[in-house]
């Protein structure tokens, strides 16, 4: 299977199963489209007819082009077959029972009252609570005990607002550091925060202990303050931006993400990206809002073309600033064509409910943070482990071949079947497909690959 598209002067052909990316001229672009559909002579005749007015496109030239395509096909770089299906469950089977990442909900409460919050202002449709040190420590012990031979363990401090339970966060990190060597593990911590409680102590801790910090900022002040307000209704932009700047400056190049949400209020989110850049931030992410259809924040059909245009313009901005020596990173455009994950990983799905779980303040286990509060998805707890084996089996069976719609999608090995939570919320099934999300994802991949292709072109002069 191949996918062809054009963007800003580049004709791009993706060979889906080998992962091949080819930049081709117009003649090759048209010929590749016909190659598998028609016999050689018909292909040559059709392309010759189309380019009849061009003197440089000779019969010999067309034959050369055809041979180039055939050579790539023979080398397994074009029209390669999907032979991965039998491997679809292999990685999950091999690592069955191994947990390598936990999302610790250390605070089901928040000091902001964002109307669009998927977690209902941190409460996840339940009671307000903070995780005790004892529960957190048991969660870390559960992770160590169930991580098998895996060395790198990921723990995300999440909420609500995790800094509302900062002392516990610090104690848990200290505990993990005290045992990781003896247990043969390496903890990688992440903190996701709205920023209000950032102070020098937090900055010092985050920069010393956290492999990544995710900072919530929606971009323009008026956009951010529309939803990200405190309980008195006051916007938070003015209070958090100076704190974020201080933290990032002190971070000294370590990973962070300035992470925004775009909604129906700002489908033109490129302006928000530009605001983040103007503020001096360079590691950026903007995500479509996750909320029920009909919610005032929800993106509409009319928003979609605007959003798709933003993605294209964002890719252009990325390339332009890189050229000017002012590069930035956009989370969804980070793509490592030569060193990305192997095919086992690419067909296995995201790992929610199997290698990755969320832990509530009470120690309950859920497949991921987005399922917390949905009682039927409760998998078990950190003392007994996973006891809801039926639900876990549903997640274990999620892979790129589990969804009919993915089988013919060119982007399937870049997305691995998509987000189970988005699928569930859109269709009622974790093995459904969130079509709007797919459309956005495909556009992002086209833009990301285009930007990488431009880099290659420019590096070659």
């Amino acid at each position, binding site marked *: 299977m191949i996918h062809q598209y054009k963007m800003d002067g580049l004709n791009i052909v993706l060979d889906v199963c080998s992962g091949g990316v080819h930049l081709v001229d117009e003649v090759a672009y048209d010929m590749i489209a016909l190659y598998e559909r028609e016999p050689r002579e018909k292909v040559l005749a059709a392309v010759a007819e189309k380019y009849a007015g061009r003197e440089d496109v000779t019969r010999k030239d067309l034959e050369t082009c055809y041979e180039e395509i055939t050579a*790539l096909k023979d080398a397994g770089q074009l029209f390669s077959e999907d*032979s991965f299906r039998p491997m679809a469950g292999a990685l999950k089977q091999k690592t069955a029972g191994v947990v390598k990442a936990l999302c610790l909900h250390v605070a089901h409460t928040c000091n902001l009252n964002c109307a669009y919050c998927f977690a209902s202002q941190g409460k996840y449709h339940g009671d307000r609570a903070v995780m005790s040190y004892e529960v957190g420590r048991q969660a870390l012990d559960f992770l160590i005990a169930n991580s098998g031979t895996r060395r790198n363990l*990921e723990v995300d401090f999440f909420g609500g607002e995790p800094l509302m339970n900062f002392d516990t966060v610090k104690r848990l990190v200290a505990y993990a550091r005290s045992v990781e060597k003896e247990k043969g593990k390496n903890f990688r911590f992440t903190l996701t925060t709205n920023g209000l409680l950032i102070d020098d102590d937090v900055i010092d801790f985050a920069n010393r202990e956290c492999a990544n910090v995710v900072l919530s900022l929606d971009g323009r002040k008026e956009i951010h303050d529309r939803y990200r307000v405190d309980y008195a209704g006051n916007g938070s932009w003015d209070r958090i931006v100076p704190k974020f700047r201080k933290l990032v400056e002190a971070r000294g190049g370590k990973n962070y993400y300035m992470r925004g949400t775009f909604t129906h209020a700002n489908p033109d989110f490129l302006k928000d990206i530009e605001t983040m850049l103007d503020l001096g931030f360079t590691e950026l992410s903007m995500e479509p809002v996750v909320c029920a259809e009909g919610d005032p924040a929800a993106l509409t059909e009319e928003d979609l073309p605007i959003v798709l245009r933003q993605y294209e313009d964002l890719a252009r901005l990325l390339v332009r600033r890189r050229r000017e020596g002012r590069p930035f990173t956009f989370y969804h455009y980070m*793509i490592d064509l030569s060193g990305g994950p192997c095919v086992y990983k*690419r067909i296995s799905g995201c790992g929610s409910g199997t290698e990755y779980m969320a832990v509530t303040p009470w120690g309950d286990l859920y497949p991921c943070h987005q399922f917390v509060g949905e009682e039927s998805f409760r998998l078990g707890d950190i003392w007994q482990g996973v006891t809801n084996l039926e639900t876990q089996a549903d997640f274990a069976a999620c892979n790129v071949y589990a969804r009919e719609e993915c089988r013919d999608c060119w982007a399937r090995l870049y997305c691995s079947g998509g987000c189970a939570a988005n699928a569930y919320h859109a269709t009622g099934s974790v093995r459904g497909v969130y079509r709007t999300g797919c459309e956005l994802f495909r556009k992002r991949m086209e833009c990301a690959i285009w930007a990488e292709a431009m880099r290659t072109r420019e590096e070659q002069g």
Partner: protein
Amino acid sequence: MEHIQTLNTRNLCESAKNGGCGECQTSCQSACKTSCGIANQQCEKKAEK
């Protein structure tokens, strides 16, 4: 080649032969998480080299 320039990419068919160690980072398409997407993730084996 005259008409086609092939970028340097990891051959996924080849990666089937020695892949699947499972050491890689957990993936998630949402950047509200510690994780990364499949597309932007690094192979842990390669990262160690």
